[in-house]
């Protein structure tokens, strides 16, 4: 069986001081000084995600969730280890990232499709479905700068889902818009799962994870603390949180 996503012994380090040399001057002045120390963002991660799985990545802030999603999405290259991805992948873009305010919704759809690796012809095929799902028919030829945040998110979600990727990566926002549109998002995600597509999402919203995920990966300090069925993993994570709260309340405050 082939997996949609395979990570093998992935380590990811970051420069501890992010901006060691932000100017030529400081670079020249500190020419012979040693390089910045590295902080490990991810430590020796090995995991496989099968086609059709919906995986939630949970954990506290700074535990490496987003780093892991970016490693899978090929935005970061691992310091060591290998990443293999089978199928076309797309990332749901948050508000500002993929849209140009001066261009119309329709033009932005083409741009976003191209970012996800589609050709213009492929986007054209899917254009009607995207616009229909977003419910933005009346506004699609207005510049995006006139959209509300909710409308932008609806457009972003529609593009991510209706471009029909094999693997969908989502950071934080799983369902967008008002309650009704959120319901629509969830049912679309479920249809997506049933079609055998793979979803990996990072979230703090454990209810959302319970609702759609078939598997949860709990990250702690850059390592996998637990990887298994959604409910037990969430329970273990919650238990560690309350345990942690009692023992290290003082430490947290610092």
């Amino acid at each position, binding site marked *: 069986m082939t997996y949609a996503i395979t990570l093998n012994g992935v380590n990811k380090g*970051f*420069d501890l001081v*992010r*901006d060691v*040399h*932000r*100017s*030529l*001057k400081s*670079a020249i002045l500190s020419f012979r000084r040693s390089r910045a120390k590295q902080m490990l963002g991810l430590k020796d991660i090995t995991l496989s995600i099968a086609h059709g799985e919906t995986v939630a990545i949970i954990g506290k802030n700074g535990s490496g969730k987003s780093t892991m999603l*970016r490693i899978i*999405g*090929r*935005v*970061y*290259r691992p310091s060591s280890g290998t990443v293999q991805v089978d199928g076309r*992948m797309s*990332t749901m*873009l*948050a508000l*500002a*990232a*993929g849209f*140009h305010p*001066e*261009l119309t919704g329709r*033009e932005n759809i*083409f*741009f976003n499709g*191209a*970012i*996800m*690796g*589609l*050709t*213009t012809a492929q986007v054209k095929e899917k254009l009607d479905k995207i616009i229909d799902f977003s419910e933005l028919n009346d506004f699609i030829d207005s510049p995006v700068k006139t959209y509300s945040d909710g409308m932008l998110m609806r457009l972003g979600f529609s593009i991510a889902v209706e471009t029909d990727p094999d693997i969908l990566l989502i*950071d934080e926002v799983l369902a967008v818009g008002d309650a009704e549109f959120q319901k629509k998002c969830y049912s679309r995600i479920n249809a997506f799962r049933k079609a055998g597509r793979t979803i990996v999402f990072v979230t703090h919203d454990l209810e959302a994870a319970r609702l759609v995920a078939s598997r949860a990966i709990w990250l702690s300090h850059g390592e996998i603390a637990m990887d298994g069925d959604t409910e037990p993993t969430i329970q273990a994570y919650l238990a560690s949180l309350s345990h942690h709260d009692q023992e290290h309340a003082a430490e947290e405050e610092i």
Partner: protein
Amino acid sequence: MSNILKLETEYTARSALTFAGLDLILLIVSFVSRPAQPTNMIDELKELFKYRDLLKQLVVRDLKVRYRNSVLGFFWSLANPLLQVATMTIVIKYVMRLDIRNYSAYLLVGYLPWMFFQMALLDSSQVVLMHRDLLRKVYFPREVLPLSVVIANLIHYILALFVFFSYLLAYRVFLHGAPIMPSAFLLPVLMALQSCLIIGLTFFVSCLNVFYEDVKYLLTALLNVFFYLTPVMYPSELVYSQLAKTHHPILYKLYLLNPLNALIDAYRKTLLPPFSALALKGTPVKSLPLNYGILIGAGVLCIAIAIAGYAFFNSRKWVFAEKV
């Protein structure tokens, strides 16, 4: 006069050698600056080709955004160079009394490629930072960003050339001015070489600006200096006769080493007839024919810079997302 011509043939041989030497240095530099992550340029180009529609979208987006909100659209981007050229013509011709017939045509033919060069480099210093949100979220071949800047500016340049040619044509018809030269067929070659040069430099600039924020200030300063070091406002013959007279061969060689000089000189000599009646401090200055040796050397250098720039960019492009 014959002295100058002798000197010139001597320089052809020497400059070809110098160019070969510089190419070698560049290649060594690109290999010595060891890639942080080894990359295979052919594979990178294949991946880039897969994302050609994204490149197209970026260019279209750039052009649309630039022209959408103004009624005059494209003509705004022409207004600036035309105003500059008009001002310089007046200053040079009537204040400084440099007597070249049809000076504005000679100026424009150098100023338009200079604009292409300058605008592309300035835009490229910002392009990675401008797309930081995208870089941090999505995978795509990073080189589409500087490439889109170069292509968008190349399109401006082509549009501006149309205006230049209609100006020449109008001048020809109504005022019996400079004819359009048969050697103008070399224009696409010159444009291709200049694009290579610019692509290579934008790779360096856009990449370095991610790591060192003051690169854009340095770039602005250098562009100001190089505007005067490049034969835009004056024909290269003036530099030549000055340097040949006072015998600083190394200076003229250094002057020739800038491939942009060779290209702008070649634009002028292939698109316009040799200028007539130019005098420097009373001494007549003869116009020189296009030196193909220098042009070929400059062309090789342009391509070498493009390859070195791409290698440099590739070795660092996957760190952008962590740095911006």
